[in-house]
């Protein structure tokens, strides 16, 4: 994994501190060209991995990347699935079974379609695989060496104690996509316990890691100890604690923890991206 991963929250009206800022961003990135321009800026600054949710709009970005193979020669995407709001809104409206009907490919009431058979047999792993395939469709032909599950799903499964789902996900991502499975979580230590239990070794785990302990369940001390002592490949997100920290102190805190492999951040302007990159490089040494 690259040291710096470029995030996508700034493009899709996600700002953990301010709805107002989020709205302003959504105006700015209403068109795909605006997103591509920022990605190009990052790429020119040497940031070659884009870690993004499987938002519908990403498919437009993928089209652009496929059309310009030379420009994006060594560009990688780390997809994070699913785009939870899509499913959450469907579940609110149609219920869980209704939402499955909407998103499982094929007609679930037709036993001929693969989705129909899986549904009729209550083959949950097969249904999961179909949903993964549906989410991954837009990335066809693009290098996706790591594929993440979003925290809301990771943590839902974690809380429910459905450990075998992690095992099945892990196996499928390696087998079908020849990629490394990754896990985003707000409950780092707890997740590592469970992944270990089902025999997943040295996993890639992305979690909030910041100086003020924001969204770090169990607290900062536990996280520091976990990162230092346990066998996994940490990716740090929410390093700026949703903007509560100044960049310098934020990046210094993360870079000091030598086991952290990659740092995820998002920014919209050339200067901000460059400033963050330079800071990370400086604190690396």
């Amino acid at each position: 994994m690259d040291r710096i991963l470029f995030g996508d929250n700034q493009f899709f009206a996600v700002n953990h501190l301010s709805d107002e800022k989020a709205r302003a961003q959504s105006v700015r990135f209403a068109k795909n060209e605006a997103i591509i321009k920022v990605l190009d800026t990052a790429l020119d600054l040497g940031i070659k991995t884009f870690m993004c949710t499987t938002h519908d709009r990403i498919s437009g970005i993928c089209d652009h990347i496929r059309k310009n193979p030379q420009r994006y020669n060594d560009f990688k995407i780390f997809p994070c699935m699913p785009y939870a709001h899509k499913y959450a809104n469907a579940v609110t409206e149609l219920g869980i079974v209704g939402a499955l009907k909407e998103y499982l490919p094929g007609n679930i009431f037709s036993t001929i379609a693969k989705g129909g058979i899986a549904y009729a047999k209550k083959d949950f792993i097969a249904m999961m695989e179909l949903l993964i395939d549906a989410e991954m469709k837009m990335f066809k032909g693009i290098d996706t060496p790591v594929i993440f599950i979003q925290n809301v799903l990771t943590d839902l499964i974690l809380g429910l104690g459905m450990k075998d789902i992690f095992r099945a996900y892990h196996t499928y991502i390696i087998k079908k996509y020849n990629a490394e499975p990754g896990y985003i979580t707000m409950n780092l230590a707890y997740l590592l316990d469970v992944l270990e239990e089902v025999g997943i070794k040295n996993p890639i785990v992305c979690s909030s890691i910041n100086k003020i302990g924001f969204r770090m369940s169990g607290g900062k001390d536990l996280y520091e100890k976990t990162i230092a002592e346990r066998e996994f490949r940490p990716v740090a997100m929410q390093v700026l604690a949703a903007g509560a920290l100044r960049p310098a102190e934020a990046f210094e805190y993360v870079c000091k923890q030598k086991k952290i492999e990659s740092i995820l951040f998002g920014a919209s302007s050339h200067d901000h991206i460059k400033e963050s990159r330079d800071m990370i490089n400086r604190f690396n040494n």
Partner: protein
Amino acid sequence: MIKTGIIGLGKMGLSHASIINAHRDLDLVSVCDTSNLILEAMKKYGSYEVYTDYEKMINGSDLQALFVATPTKYHADMVIYALGKGIHVFCEKPFALTIAQGENMVELAKKNKLVNQVGYHNRFIGTFNYLRKLIENKAIGEVYHFIGEAYGPVVVKRKESTWRSDSSEGGGCLFDYASHVINLIEYVLDDIKEVDGVILKKIYSSGVEDAVYSGLYLANGLSGQLSVNWSDETYRKMSTQITVLGTEGKIITDAQELKIYLKKENKKLGLEKGWNMRYITDLTDPVDFYLRGEEYSAQVDYFAKCIASSGTLENVNSFESALHTDVIIELLKNKSR
């Protein structure tokens, strides 16, 4: 460990189930739903007893606590059955379909001295609690007006109906969205006594309203406005905001931040003259297990603490306070033209 069960495994139910199961003092032993598919998954990948009949679950699982996350029309039967068996109950919102049902639940919980809580999670959000404290401390002088708002993209086009589009089943913007804002206003400011100029607007739905607008009059004499719309796709998710205006300033609060304007510096509260910002990052206590917002974990944790305290901790979001929200919902319905 408190032996806990849950009825209803929709979005809220699954989220509660995950938080309960991860909680150090709660033991999720059994789940109940009508969907075979969901139950099969819970049985296969979890370690839960599964039921399709809630009475069988309550009798078979020796529960101490129960979460009810079904549509509102089922609440009363389930809650009363559980309270009758001496089980502490956490019920999703909106609480009751009729005031009479709500009163029965409130009375029985009181009579049997059981912990009772309703899922109005805004009361566990740091920013709204801080707003409440600022108002109590007269940070903006005499309050003279407020606006309670919530907007989101639940129904943004015409389509087939579900229970959410049937008001007799607890559907509609008033039940689903406005209830949160009404409840929050009562928590932060005071109980609502009277409503006037009520507009219940259908936008895409045919059976229920998609927007609620009204004047509100509180017990302490304060007046303000309610503006709620669940058909506004300019919002990515539900966004709730309370604005309070006073003789000495103004406060605008949502789940993420407070914008506080003061005419004069307030040393006691550490606020400067002019605009002050306070962020959720400084106002939120960490939780042991995070799923989708600290408030969802915090409310479950508080419910567990109340049970463990054997009656010494006071209920937050008690049945009684949730029933008052239902009373106002009823009032808004009756007063609309």
